């Protein structure tokens, strides 16, 4: 008697029977293959139409802006005539503001290099991949560590008088501490309480970079002194 053998070739198309992708199973979720891809739509036209619309909106906004704002053009470059202050483009003014507090090696080389290395390493840290809240287990111990690190940093910054870094640091630290003591379960405070440490570090970094850049761009005048954007010098 010939048995009818079933020959299978290739992969079945049923991902639940024959998973091909190594899935990432996070804690607090079941290990079953979760069909979280949801419904799919055809790229043509659904994605392409949306992209075309946002592209057009941006182009129109830029054209309108280009009609009313003119690219700057100053006098011919003159190596003998140093403007005061001489400023880099806005995206480097955060660094230039740092130069005001730290020696060139620290502000211009060390800090940017460290930031770059940290950025590249973000996906490879692999701690707390599930994004568990900072104020989860052992919250009081963590508060002590975070408070000690923050205070140490603030003292260091106070020594060099770097108050444009102190300000955003204090601001983010205040939110951090408030979220520890808060009992809120909804609203923005409720969601702050669920944020992981990585969220806090990045938010602190962005707040600081933003503050340094805005101050460097709008509030610094001759000799890197404090000025108001509307023109009056501070005393």
């Amino acid at each position: 008697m010939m048995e009818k053998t079933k020959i299978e070739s290739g992969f079945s198309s049923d991902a639940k029977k024959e998973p091909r992708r190594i899935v990432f199973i996070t804690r607090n979720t079941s290990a079953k293959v979760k069909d979280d891809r949801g419904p799919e739509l055809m790229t043509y036209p659904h994605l392409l139409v949306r992209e075309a619309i946002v592209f057009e909106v941006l182009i129109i906004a830029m054209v309108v802006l280009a009609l009313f704002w003119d690219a700057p053009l100053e006098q011919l470059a003159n190596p003998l005539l140093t403007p005061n202050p001489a400023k880099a483009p806005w995206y480097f003014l955060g660094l230039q503001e740092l130069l005001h507090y730290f020696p060139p090696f620290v502000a211009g080389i060390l800090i940017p290099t460290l930031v770059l290395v940290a950025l590249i390493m973000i996906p490879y840290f692999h701690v707390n991949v599930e994004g568990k809240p900072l104020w989860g287990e052992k919250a009081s111990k963590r508060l002590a560590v975070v408070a000690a690190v923050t205070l140490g940093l603030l003292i260091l910054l106070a020594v060099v008088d770097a108050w444009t870094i102190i300000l955003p640091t204090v601001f983010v630290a205040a939110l951090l501490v408030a979220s520890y003591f808060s009992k809120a379960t909804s609203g923005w405070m409720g969601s702050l309480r669920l944020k992981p440490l990585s969220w806090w570090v990045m938010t602190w970094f962005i707040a600081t970079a933003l503050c340094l850049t805005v101050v460097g761009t709008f509030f610094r005048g001759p000799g890197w002194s404090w000025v108001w954007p509307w023109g009056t010098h501070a005393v």
Partner: protein
Amino acid sequence: MATTFHAALENLRTTRVWKSIFRRGPAITNRTRSVAVFGNLFLHWLPVKVREKSLRVRAAYYLGSLSFLLFLLLVITGVLLMFYYHPAAPNAYRDMKDLRFVVSNGVFLRNMHRIAAHLMVLLVFCHMFHVFYRGGYKPPHEFNWVIGVVLLLITLFLSYTGYLLPWDQLAFWAVTVGTNIVSAMPVIGSKVRFVALGGNIVGENALLRFYVLHVVILPLLAFLLIGVHFWRVQKDGGLTVRSKDDDGKN
């Protein structure tokens, strides 16, 4: 009127000429719609289907796509500007004056290039931070994040090398300030600065070097890496969607 126009368009799409150009008839079935994407060189890096969730505005705010749009606009306006520009001192500055006073729409051209450049830096930063907050760097997207960091650097260098080209006071001193910092590098600082500027001061050699970097080397690198970046988004299984996306929030 609208219907006759529509009918004419539909007819056009069934002609042999149309088919010979697009390699398909009207994209009205899912099969022809798939062909419309993977059968088109300029779209083939897109997936044929996208998850509904990743189409929601919050999934990306179109920040990556808009960065790419700005890159394209910069290439187009940049090539047009090249018709009027000489990378020499002080000719470069005179070319800026010509763009303002002589060339038709020269001001508009320069404005668009300048606005797109600043906006691209801004949007690439926003894109990076947004990807971070959504956890878009998590496996299997790790390496695409690293490619992204390199793209950020290239974007900054593109913008910075372009900043010198008008050869006015603003350009000259911004680059002088920036490249002075390079000398703070231990041991090799002044050598690196010398190589970057082609001399000890920001002069004609620096202008030429920045120009070549700005119009050839960096755009080619950016184009290459943007290609890899997009290809990886697709190969890594599309945008990161979170279970939170179900409730329609965040």
